[in-house]
């Protein structure tokens, strides 16, 4: 498609999606961003999408105004809380999808992404990851995991994703997961030259780059005969499951590791023998829960740990609060915010009476660890990845 055609189609798609919105604003109280900004309607859910709607409808070309729109659209964490509210209470408008398309449009018009996000996209293009980690360094870390390279003998491709090689807390979580897979005697392999799944580019609106990455990964999967992928990150999980071409993913089963662990526990391939006498709360990652309805499996894993008491957040499952890291926000800061979602969530975990907050997403982990530090509650609240807690229970 020509550039103009692409833009025209994006604009029409945006208007078509947003024609369902009736400005009832039932989504606003559900929008975490609206909660942590100063009360501007355009800083929340349908306020953002109405901004997009009128910018498209009126053919806005003023660069200053489009930059304002960019700041609005890119602040969304794409957590889909708004879509849940709209489905339950109103017309079922796909607000987060419209925002994603709005970002694509801004990229086409050379307005997006946010200035800080450009480096992440450049890094994706150059190194295959958004963290500016050279391929050689990433490969060295991956090899240090002592997991064999994927071959046709392997049952499972363990897709680690970009975050673990770049963050110490996420590394510990990934290493714990490897230990669990070994404990269960799973024949798994990794890709030595693993590159990103493409999620960050997709969420920042850089669809062309996503398609390139997608093609590279699909070629690898095909040539290696991959039949089953277990992802470390919920974001990779969602991307492979829902955003890669269905026809080319046929025959490949995609699971998040929390689902895989739940299966292993059910089949008695993984048994926890050590008691963990702790009150634990579980942070539902948006891309596992609201995007893919994976709520029960991580809880089943936790339930199988002897001695552990699961205490739920007052808002859990589909109502869960985002950590603030989705939608490309790991690479951008926004001035309008007066609080951090992770801080709010840590306080909620303390209110729930938890000693440990467990999550199954590396981005949630990073944000929550920061939240605990910034609130100075390291003595009363620990943040752990689900695999780390499981390892303690072996």
């Amino acid at each position, binding site marked *: 498609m020509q550039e103009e055609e692409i833009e025209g189609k994006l604009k029409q798609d945006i208007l078509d999606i947003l*024609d*369902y919105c*009736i*400005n*009832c*604003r*039932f989504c*606003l*109280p559900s929008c975490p961003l609206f909660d942590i900004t*100063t*009360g*501007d*309607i*355009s800083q929340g859910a349908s*306020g953002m999408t*109405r*901004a997009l709607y*009128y*910018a498209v409808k*009126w053919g806005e070309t003023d660069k200053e*105004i489009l930059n*304002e*729109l960019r700041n*609005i659209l890119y602040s969304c964490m794409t957590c889909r809380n708004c879509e849940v509210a*709209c*489905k*339950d*209470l*109103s*017309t*079922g408008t796909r607000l987060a999808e419209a925002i994603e398309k709005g970002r694509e449009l801004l990229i086409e018009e050379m307005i997006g992404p946010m200035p800080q996000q450009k480096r992440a996209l450049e890094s994706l293009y150059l190194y295959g990851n958004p963290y500016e980690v050279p391929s050689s360094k990433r490969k060295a870390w991956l090899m240090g995991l002592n997991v064999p390279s994927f071959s046709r003998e392997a049952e499972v491709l363990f897709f680690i994703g970009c975050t673990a090689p770049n963050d110490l807390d996420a590394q510990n979580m990934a290493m714990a997961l490897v230990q669990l897979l070994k404990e269960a005697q799973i024949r798994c392999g990794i890709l030595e030259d693993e590159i990103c799944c493409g999620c960050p580019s997709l969420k920042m609106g850089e669809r062309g780059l996503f398609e390139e990455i997608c093609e590279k990964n699909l070629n690898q999967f095909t040539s290696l005969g991959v039949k089953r992928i277990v992802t470390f990150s919920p974001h990779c999980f969602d991307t492979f499951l829902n955003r890669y071409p269905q026809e080319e993913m046929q025959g490949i089963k995609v699971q998040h590791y929390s689902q895989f662990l739940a299966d292993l526990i059910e089949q008695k391939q993984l048994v926890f023998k050590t008691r963990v006498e702790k009150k634990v709360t579980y942070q539902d990652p948006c891309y596992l829960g609201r995007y893919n309805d994976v709520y029960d499996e991580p809880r089943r894993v936790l339930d199988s740990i002897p001695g552990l008491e699961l205490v739920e957040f007052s808002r859990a499952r589909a109502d869960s609060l985002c950590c603030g890291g989705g939608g490309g926000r790991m690479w951008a800061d926004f001035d309008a915010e007066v609080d951090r979602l992770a801080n709010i969530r840590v306080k909620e975990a303390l209110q729930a009476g938890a000693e440990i907050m467990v999550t199954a997403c590396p981005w949630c982990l990073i944000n929550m660890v920061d939240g605990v530090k910034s609130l100075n509650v390291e003595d009363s609240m620990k943040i752990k990845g689900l695999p780390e807690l499981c390892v303690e229970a072996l």
Partner: protein
Amino acid sequence: MAEYPEYKPEHIYEDLRKILPEESLSKSLFERINNALDPYTFASDISQEEIPYIVVRPASTEQVSKLMKYAHSKKTPVFVRGSGTSLQGASRYRHKGIVLNVNRLNHLNIMKDYGFVEFGPGHRVLYVKEQLEKEGYFLPLVPGSIRVASIGGIISNNTTAHAVDSCLGKPRDYILGLEVVLPTGEVLQTGTRGLRRAAGTDLTHYFVGGDGLLGVITGIRMKLLPGFKNAYGVAFFDDQIPLARAVQRIYLEKAPPPLFLEFLDKRVAQISFEIQGLASPPGPLIMFHAIGQTEEEATYKIDQLVGVIQKESPIDAKRIEELDEWRRIWLARESALPFICQAAKGVFGLSEIVSTVPDLVDCLKEAMNMSKGMPTLEKLGEPYLFGHIGALTFHPVFVLPVDWSAEEKAKAIDEMFFKEAEINAKYGTCGGEWGQFARRTPFYLKRYGEKAFELVREMKKLFDPNNILNPDVLPDE
């Protein structure tokens, strides 16, 4: 439409920043657009020429007063806005001017010793409800939009929403006093700090249910009500006629009035029950919720209601023992409208038909036949029907296909409000939920006559000589 001098937005901004804090002013294009929209946009979409000059979010009565004095001196319209959820245009921005968003007017003091609560208009209703419930009190405001609607709008509208009036009364019955900024900028205190409300003239009542025409409410003082115990019931019928007769019986046989008594027609009941994983109901149904000081009292009331309802031979009528069952049934009611829209791939047009007790059966039939003779509505067929039948209210719903043009949707909405006015005028009733003016002015004229309308207009002039506060909610003609 009223006419006003035109100003440049930047001049208004420069003037206002001299008298108001910077953080209370927003000149962002998108914020101005968002503050000018309400749920019936498709009936009268905003144009680029109409965008508000500025959005002002004052944090105190004093700031509101300064703004109103300024606007009065400049003869510039001011549109007061909470969450903007009005379904008939009461919160709609409709003339080039300033939007006064009340969401920073959000004080909340529960004065247990005095027996009242004081709060600002900017809170969402649900928030105030939750705060009161934590202290063991009940908020007598129950809009369907409770999650998002702002409490100032509910008070300005005096809406009973879901509740049965004969059980709960109107919000006005609980308001002890107000702080109000007049369109000319003066600040009024009305009512009392005592629990005994004023006899005789009390200006509180001009503003509660005043459709936002006479002043800007900046503080509300409301009686504290102790929390209740609850009991629940449900009744399924073969047909809607005996169902309506059962409701008539509740009134005629002096059964205890329930807090809520909701109705779903067969189509709506089946769609919404299926979504909630409940067994598909065989026909239309009513669900009811009674309150009492004790569980025994609430249960007694439900049993009385079930006894009366059974005289109309329902398929089943029973008290609900399990709270979870009630929650699911209530959720089915709450989710009825969204799921109808989603199933029919459209956006809703909702009206409010109110009956008298003796006319309930006939009124129900007329609501079902609402599209007849209306060229645009007829394309949509019979409306989906549900509503607060305990308050003798029906909400016929038309789902307007999303791909209809804005003009066609507007025609449908116009026809719907025309028919609503015709039926309510016929039965001598009026809407109890959405205010009297804005889109409903033709009904007001028809129902109460030219003289009544003229008196309202004269009163508006008295309070607001330059007609700057929410102008055109009360049209010129």
